[in-house]
C-alpha cells in the first residue's frame, strides 16, 4: 500500500497492435513496483470531462535509474482510451499506482496455465514475463474475436516456455473455438494453477473448469472504477460470504473460490 504513488508519466512510444488496440510505453520519475495483476489509474485530462481516471493493468515494467518504464496495452472503447490513442508522444499523463492485489505467482506450483481473452491480455502477459524470469514452465491460452485482435503473438511465443495456444471466435487464426473450450480439450493433468483475465463470461467458464479439475484459479476482474483506492465502493464484487469487496483493493485478482456464485 505504501508503494503506491501519484506521479506524472511521459508517453515515450506507442505502437498500433490491431485496428483498435495499441501499446503505450511510459516513463515515470519515481519507482512503480508493480506485480503482475496490479494496475494503475491513468488520468489524461486537465478539465472535468473526462472526470475520472481509468484503470489499466500493467503489462510490464522495468526499473530505470530512479523511476520506471512501463507498458500498457489498451483497447479503444470510449472517451479516455480514444484520447490515449491520439495523445502526442512526450505528453504527460497522471499515473497512480501500483494498485490492488496481483496474481500470487509464488504459489502457483510447478506448471500453471495462463488464460487470456481479448484485451484481458495485459496482466496475463505480465505474469508470463515474470514466470519466464522465475524459470517456471507454463502454458498460455489466448483467444480473441479474430486474428488481428490476437496481439503480440510472436512476443508471446518467445515468452512462453511451454505451449502457447491461440484461437479465435471466427477461426481466422487457430481453431475456431472459445478459449475456455479449447483449454478444456487440451487440459493437462500437470496444470497446477490457473491464472486468467478476460471478459466475464470467459472468467465464469474458467472458474467452472478449475472447479471441475480441482485446481485453484485466480481471476483478474474488470469492474468500473471511480477512485481505484478503496474509498468509493463503486467497484465491488460479490464474495462467497455475500459481502461486497472493492475490487480495486481486495482485487482485481481474486481466487475463484472467494467469489460468490456467478459473482
Amino acid at each position, binding site marked *: *500500500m*505504501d508503494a*503506491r504513488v*501519484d506521479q506524472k508519466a511521459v508517453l515515450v512510444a506507442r505502437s498500433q497492435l490491431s485496428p483498435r488496440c495499441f501499446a503505450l510505453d511510459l516513463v515515470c520519475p519515481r519507482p512503480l513496483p508493480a506485480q503482475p495483476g496490479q494496475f494503475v489509474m491513468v*488520468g489524461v485530462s486537465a478539465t*472535468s*470531462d*473526462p*472526470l*475520472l*481516471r481509468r484503470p489499466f493493468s500493467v503489462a510490464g515494467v522495468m526499473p530505470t535509474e530512479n523511476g520506471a518504464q512501463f507498458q500498457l496495452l489498451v483497447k479503444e472503447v470510449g472517451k479516455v482510451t480514444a484520447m490515449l490513442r491520439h495523445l502526442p508522444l512526450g505528453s504527460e499523463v*497522471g499515473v*497512480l499506482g501500483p494498485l490492488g492485489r496481483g496474481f500470487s505467482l509464488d504459489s502457483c506450483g510447478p506448471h500453471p496455465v495462463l488464460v487470456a481473452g481479448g484485451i484481458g491480455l495485459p496482466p496475463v502477459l505480465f505474469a508470463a514475463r515474470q514466470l519466464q524470469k522465475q524459470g517456471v514452465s507454463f502454458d498460455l491460452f489466448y483467444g480473441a474475436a479474430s486474428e488481428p485482435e490476437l496481439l503480440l503473438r510472436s512476443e508471446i511465443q518467445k515468452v512462453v516456455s511451454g505451449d502457447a495456444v491461440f484461437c479465435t471466435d471466427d477461426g481466422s487464426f487457430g481453431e475456431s473455438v472459445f478459449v475456455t473450450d479449447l483449454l478444456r480439450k487440451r487440459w493437462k493433468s500437470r496444470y497446477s494453477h490457473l491464472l486468467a483475465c478476460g471478459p466475464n463470461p470467459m472468467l465464469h467458464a474458467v472458474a467452472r473448469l478449475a472447479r471441475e479439475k480441482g485446481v485453484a484459479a485466480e481471476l483478474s476482474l474488470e*469492474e*468500473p*472504477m*471511480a*477512485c481505484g*483506492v*478503496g*474509498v*468509493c*465502493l*463503486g*467497484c*465491488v*464484487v*460479490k464474495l462467497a460470504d*455475500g*459481502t*461486497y469487496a472493492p475490487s480495486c483493493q481486495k482485487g482485481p485478482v481474486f481466487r475463484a473460490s472467494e467469489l460468490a456464485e456467478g459473482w
Partner: protein
Amino acid sequence: MVRLATEVGSLQLKNPILAASGTFGYGLDLLDFCPPEALGAVVTKGLSPKPRAGNPTPRIVETPAGMINSIGLQNIGVEAFCTDVLPTLRQRKACVVVNVFGETEEEYATVIERLQREEGIAAYELNVSCPNVHKGGMEFGHDPKLLRSLVAALRPLTQRPLWVKLSPNAPSPLAVAEAAVTAGADALTLVNTFRALSVNARTRRPSIATGFGGLSGPAIKPLALRLVWEVHRAIPQAPLVGIGGIMSGTDAVEFLLAGASAVQVGTATFRNPNACLTVLAELEAFCQQEGVEDVRELVGGLVWP
C-alpha cells in the same frame, strides 16, 4: 499569513476544508496522500446500526463532468467503526464528523447512542438525503414534518453538534432546511447528490443496477451553489457546510462567499487522492493573493445584484 481556522456553529475547525462522506472511507484509507488530521474534519462514510451490504453492481457511471453512484450505503456498521477505526483517528487527533444513517428514527438513535460512548467525535451529520436506498434517508430529507420529528427526537441524545445533510431533490429544500434548524440542528450540509439517470443506448438499460442514482461532481456545482445561497439568504443565522463539485481552491471560495462556513470535497478525491489538500493549498494561495487575512471574511460575502 492567512488565518484558515473557522467554525461551524460552535465547532472550531483548523481549516474550512472537509473530506465528504462516502468519498474518503472512514478516514484512514488515504493516509499516504491525505492524512485526516491535516483537514478541517473528515466526514465518515454513512454508518448504520448494523453493517450494510449495499446495492448490486454496476454502481457507478461517469457522466459529463460528473458521476452517478448508487452505492446503497454499504458500510461496516457503527460497532466495527468504534472498535477498528475510531481509536486510530483519535490517536491521530483527527477531527471526526460521523455521517449517520438509519432506515427509521430508532436506527438513527441507535447509531448516535453507540457513538455517544466514544470520545473523539466532533459532530454528527445526519444523512437524510441518500437517493440510493429505499427506506429511510430520502423520506426524512423530503418531508419537513418527518425531518422535524427526527431531529427533535435525536437532539436530546447528544450535546455534540448535529448537522443535517440536505437533499437537493426535496420538493422544497428551503422548507426542509427550516424544519431542521427549528428542530435544533446546529448546521446544514448542502448538498447531497441529485437523483439522476444514465442510459446505455445499446443495452437499453440504465447504466447502473438500481436505475436511478445520485449525480455528483463539477456538473452540479452551479446547482449546489445556488442552493447554498438560497438557504443562506433565507436563514442567514444557520451555519452551512457547502458541498457539490468542489475541485479547486476557487470553487471552495465560491461556496464560502455563498454563505458556507466550511466546505466538503467529495468526488474530487476520486480523481486525485490528495484533492482535499490541493483545495486547501489553493484556498490559502487565493487568500494570500487577494489580501484575505482571515478566511472567515469570505463567508457570505457574495454581493447580490
